[in-house]
């Protein structure tokens, strides 16, 4: 069977989507029930993460920073502020974290248990070819569908680092993952200290000036530099106005408007932000090895993870949310009074809440309370790639000027009605689609590109 390109093509899908339809599993090897269960839970968590990622992305799709700024500065008892608090506390970065973990886990599933064929492309060849196509899909998502928040680009590139770690022990992977987070925190602390130093130098220069001392050249420079830095921390309605105007424009206008953001984002995230993805992917590989994603742990363990994850995570999350509000409302006071940046524990918080989410899904699945919903999530997860791109297509057409032009027209909490509508649509559409096809349309395209020829897609009974 290893010599049959189609069968190896089918197994190759595993590593991001894990979308092996039951009959494929049967072709590979007689799959025990536990194996199918394992795949199901991973798909469920992935479907959950994919839906959840829209909770954060909708802000980028539909709301201008100016509106966020107004919500932060406005009354604290209205629907907008409460929604914002809940979203930032419970979800900020956690769904991306979960998605990254499953990407890492999927990589192991893809690469493990495959025999090398003596001639022709090897598993690693397919792996790297697929990732390179994923990078191009990311470019497409950012520059053609015009979604500056794309992650496929980074997943493709970061995935290329994982290969040598595929056989590492969970312990090693966890250490490496935490090391990534440490680097991230160190970098953020470094930048923070530089800003603080400049602020202190400025205040000293001002004090010296007030005391009628003659300023040294360094003091003069510090005095001149700070107002420029402060500009970056303060909200400027001008850019909001330009942003809203342009995003409501026609396609060429939006394209041009997002060009700098796309390019700058891909440069910054790939070089400075890679630890964000890499850390979670390595941890995801470790957790797969420990049986966490494959429903192998005891119920009490999952309950424990859920409680610890949510309690620790949301505590940090709430503190971070307060910091965010302070940062948005009183940036200078924020810099003067905070000793460390409020997002210093960002990755740790993400980690706790993400595994809490995953444990939550496992427990709901085990409780057999809403099997139809779990099945629906598994379907969404099986078509994760398609659904992710569909979110870009739907949201850009709904919010941008060349579509319905709702950008920054809805109240903050109202954008979540759009999220619920998209979730419902994706749950239903994925379920119907998978009744007739092995995998989603974009999965099919991606797979066909990787293997250089169109892949069979219809389910034949």
């Amino acid at each position, binding site marked *: 069977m290893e010599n049959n390109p189609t069968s190896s093509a089918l197994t190759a899908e595993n590593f991001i989507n894990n979308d092996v339809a039951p009959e494929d599993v049967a072709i590979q090897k007689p799959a025990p029930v536990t194996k199918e269960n394992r795949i199901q839970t991973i798909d469920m968590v992935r479907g959950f993460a994919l839906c959840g990622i829209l909770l954060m992305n909708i802000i980028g799709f539909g709301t201008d920073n100016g509106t966020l700024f107004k919500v932060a500065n406005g009354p604290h008892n209205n629907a907008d502020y409460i929604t914002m608090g809940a979203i930032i506390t419970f979800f900020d970065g956690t769904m991306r974290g979960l998605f990254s973990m499953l990407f890492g886990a999927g990589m192991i599933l893809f690469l493990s248990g495959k025999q090398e064929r003596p001639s022709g*492309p*090897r598993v*690693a060849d397919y792996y790297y070819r697929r990732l*390179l196509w994923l990078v191009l899909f990311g470019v497409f998502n950012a520059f053609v569908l015009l979604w500056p928040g794309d992650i496929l680009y980074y997943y493709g590139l970061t995935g*290329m*680092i994982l290969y*040598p770690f595929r056989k590492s022990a969970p312990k090693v992977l966890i250490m490496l993952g935490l090391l990534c987070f440490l680097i991230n925190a160190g970098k953020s602390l470094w930048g923070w200290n530089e800003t603080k130093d400049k602020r202190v130098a400025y205040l000293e220069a001002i004090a010296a000036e007030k005391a009628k001392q003659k300023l040294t050249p360094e003091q003069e420079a510090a005095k001149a530099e700070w107002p420029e830095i402060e500009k970056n921390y303060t909200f400027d309605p001008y850019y909001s106005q330009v942003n809203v105007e342009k995003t409501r424009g026609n396609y060429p206008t939006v394209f041009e408007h997002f060009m700098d953001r796309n390019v700058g984002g*891909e440069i910054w995230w790939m070089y400075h932000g890679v630890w964000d993805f890499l850390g979670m992917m390595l941890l995801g590989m470790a957790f797969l090895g420990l049986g966490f994603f494959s429903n192998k742990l005891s119920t009490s363990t999952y309950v424990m993870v859920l409680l610890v994850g949510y309690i620790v995570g949301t505590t940090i999350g709430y503190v971070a949310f307060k910091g965010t509000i302070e940062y948005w409302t009183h940036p200078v006071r924020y810099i003067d009074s905070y000793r460390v940046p409020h997002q210093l524990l960002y990755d740790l918080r993400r980690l706790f809440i993400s595994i809490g989410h995953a444990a939550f899904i496992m427990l709901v699945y085990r409780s057999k309370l809403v099997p139809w919903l779990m099945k629906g999530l598994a379907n969404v997860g099986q078509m994760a790639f398609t659904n992710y791109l569909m979110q870009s297509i739907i949201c850009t057409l709904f919010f941008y000027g060349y579509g319905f032009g709702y950008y920054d027209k809805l109240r903050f909490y109202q954008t979540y009605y759009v999220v619920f509508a998209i979730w419902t649509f994706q749950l239903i559409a994925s379920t119907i689609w998978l009744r007739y096809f092995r995998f989603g349309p974009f999965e099919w395209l991606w797979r066909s590109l990787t293997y250089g020829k169109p892949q069979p897609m219809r389910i034949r009974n």
Partner: protein
Amino acid sequence: MEPNHPETSPVPQPEVPPASAAPGRQLSLDVLRGAALLGGLLISVWLFGGFTTNKQYGLLSHPSGGNYRLFAAVSLLFEGKMRALIGIVFGAGIALYLGKRLHADAAKAHDYFVRRQLWLMGLGIVNGVLLLWQNDLLFHLGLMGILLLPFAQASPRALLATSLVFMLIFCGKLFWNYSDDKTALRKYNTVLAVEKKFKADSAARAKQDSLSHKAVAVATNAKDSAAKKNEAKKDTLTRKQKEDKEKWEGRLKQMKYDPKADEGSRKMMREVSYVKLWSSTLSSTQGREAAWTYRIGVWELGMSILLGLALLKLGFFENNLSRRQYLLIALAGIGIGLLCGWYRLYFQNAALLDYGKYVKTRWLPYDILVPLERLSQAIGYASLAMWLLAVSWLGWLRTSLAACGRISLTLYLLQTIVCVLFFYGIGLNNYGNLSQWQLYLFVLEFWLVQIVFSLFWLKFYPIGPAEWLWRCLVAKKWLPFKNYNEAA
């Protein structure tokens, strides 16, 4: 940069290596690597020694005199070509490395390959961020090796085609940058027209004011002044217009020689505290590793690495072509490269004299042919070297360059250490003190040092220290140093 690795499979070498080649190594690649490594120093020394872009603009603005001719010659013969040559040799190394090992144990081969590349990126970060060489190339080579892994199994034809596509994208990027300039100038001119109109308006208003002033009664004065205030407000540029204006003015400033522009970098590089120098160069080093890679590096290095892969598979480095063919490719490649280079220098002069005029009148940027220039000339050099090896001329040069090529990673890091200690303020503080020809003299002496060092080193040890360290890191164990066996 080394095509070979300790975990070599027991597969015997298909070709009989020439007598002077080390076992398990390809002499032609060692020679080319050594040549590119030494040649590249002529260009690196510009940045190390403070022969800044601005100073080069100064020469290019007045294209005459010995100093200009020296610069033009080095620029024509070396600038960017050595990087392309390193890319070609690196690409060939990838094909050689994987080709041998895939048959033995494919999973392990890929494992080792990716680990090698990751460690190379790590060494690049050490070289750039810690040793303070802002234009490090190791990081990019490591990255490109991983990115281009899916191409390693492609046919030579597909590789040549892809290399060409990369070259065209590189050209396209340069053209795109230029069209940004064109747009900036157009917007600038629009703003100028608006400003002109403002002046005319206010002149007309002033005239009207003085006429009506006597007639208007005191009672309407308040209303009048409010209206005037409004008109005056309309007469200032909007923020967008100001931004448009500043953007082009800034661009214009970049494209002009400014005698004072180098004071900042001079002060920075002559800083005596390592920590201060480190923090002031960090952003430029990281910019090179991040933004440059994204915008240019991927395409520039990609085109040459893919070409190197193709050439190795075609047997180019194993004397598969006739002497005549090598000579023809050499002449054609270098000829095309020099023509493109002449175009570049000629039009760059025009651009530096008056960039506004250049952008208004020319539809192509002066650097549009740079990708072709670099790639074509690098093939030419590679071919010339193959021809020289075939006719067995300059045997001493071959031996010297091959020795340098064998410990190229060590030498590359040594170049950084020596240049940093010689030029920067944390060392002998010669930054900006040497004139152009003195910089080349320094390079010449340093070449001799490197050649002598390499020959001596290889007399006593089979492997360079950095190469050894790199292989230990990849193998995750200490390998023998003194009795290191290349082919084992």
